[in-house]
């Protein structure tokens, strides 16, 4: 403990959550798998479209800061749209539905969905 300024003794009685380490609960939604894939995420994305676009814009800003003047962010967006056509059913259609409902670009939503694969290096 003495050697690590960020380590602390094991906490206890922190539940139910409250205080400075707790920032709130999360909303619950139903995803109806009986709906066509294109429509499944409409309720969620109607509520969260602004937040999604904000995250994606921030990532683009970051890329542009690293590579000023380059067109990397735009190029990736175009490539992501091409990639979409190769994704399996029903995921392809769900992604298209999310982009349509949220108003985010299709390339951004594809990128958001394959972020894990990109970030494992």
């Amino acid at each position, binding site marked *: 403990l003495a050697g690590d300024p960020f380590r602390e003794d094991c906490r206890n009685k922190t539940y*139910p959550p409250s205080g400075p380490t707790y920032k709130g609960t999360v909303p619950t939604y139903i995803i109806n798998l009986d709906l066509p894939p294109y429509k499944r995420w409409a309720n969620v994305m109607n509520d969260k479209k602004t937040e999604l676009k904000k995250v994606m814009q921030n990532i683009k800003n970051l890329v542009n800061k690293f590579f000023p003047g380059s067109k990397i962010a735009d190029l990736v967006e175009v490539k992501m749209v091409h990639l979409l056509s190769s994704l399996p059913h029903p995921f392809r259609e769900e992604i298209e539905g999310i982009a349509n409902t949220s108003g985010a670009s299709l390339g951004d939503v594809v990128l958001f969905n394959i972020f894990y694969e990109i970030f494992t290096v």
Partner: protein
Amino acid sequence: CTSIVAEDKTGKLYHARNLDFGLFLGWDIKNSSWTITQLLKPLVVALAFQRNNKTIFKSTNFAGYIGMLSGVRPGAFTLTMNERFSIDGGYLGILEWILGRRDGMWMGFLTRAVLENSTSYEEAKEKLAKTRLLAPAYFILGGNKPGQGCVITRSRAATLDIWDLDIKQGTWFLVETNYDRWKPPLFLDNRRDPAKQCLNQIKQENLSLATIYDVLSTKPVLNKLTVYTTLMAVDGGHTETYLRECPEPCCPW
């Protein structure tokens, strides 16, 4: 990330995780936090996937992401995924996919397919262990019977290790962060030992979702990258999710 699967003295299984994300994706000097970590918090949602008005599985997601990082199939199994970093990473899988090799599966789509279609712990374990992936990963799986809990360490093509709960040998919990269990964690990023130490202090007889929340609230298990904490119990598909904050002093990762 830190995932914990553990069994209490009665044989009941608990599964919980801290989801950490946003390393090096911009630092907000004013608020002393990672930019993307903060922006992801309002996107966290709890989802119930239904067919014929019946809940098939539940998950904690980022709105806009259709894959699964934390989920429960009520009465059957619980599943979380932790990031595994490797030189042979997902970018190679994406390249292969673009070049036409498409026998691998995207990580989020596999976990989604497993939660949607697998009806037992064994079936989920087999699919997670045997399906070729585009990126390496750790899958943490809990079942509905005593002893059913494991961490599956995956490369893109193979299963490198399956680490099972083993009550007879005293292994009543498994902790997975972002390192192979047979290797020491990076000395700057040791969340594994603090989590293990806290679980050992709690002892098996005092295990509950509340005490696991204590572990996941202890720094550096809780850190500046922590977006949310999810607590799950397979019985009835119980799940609770809480957004987190790590006040100073707090480890950046």
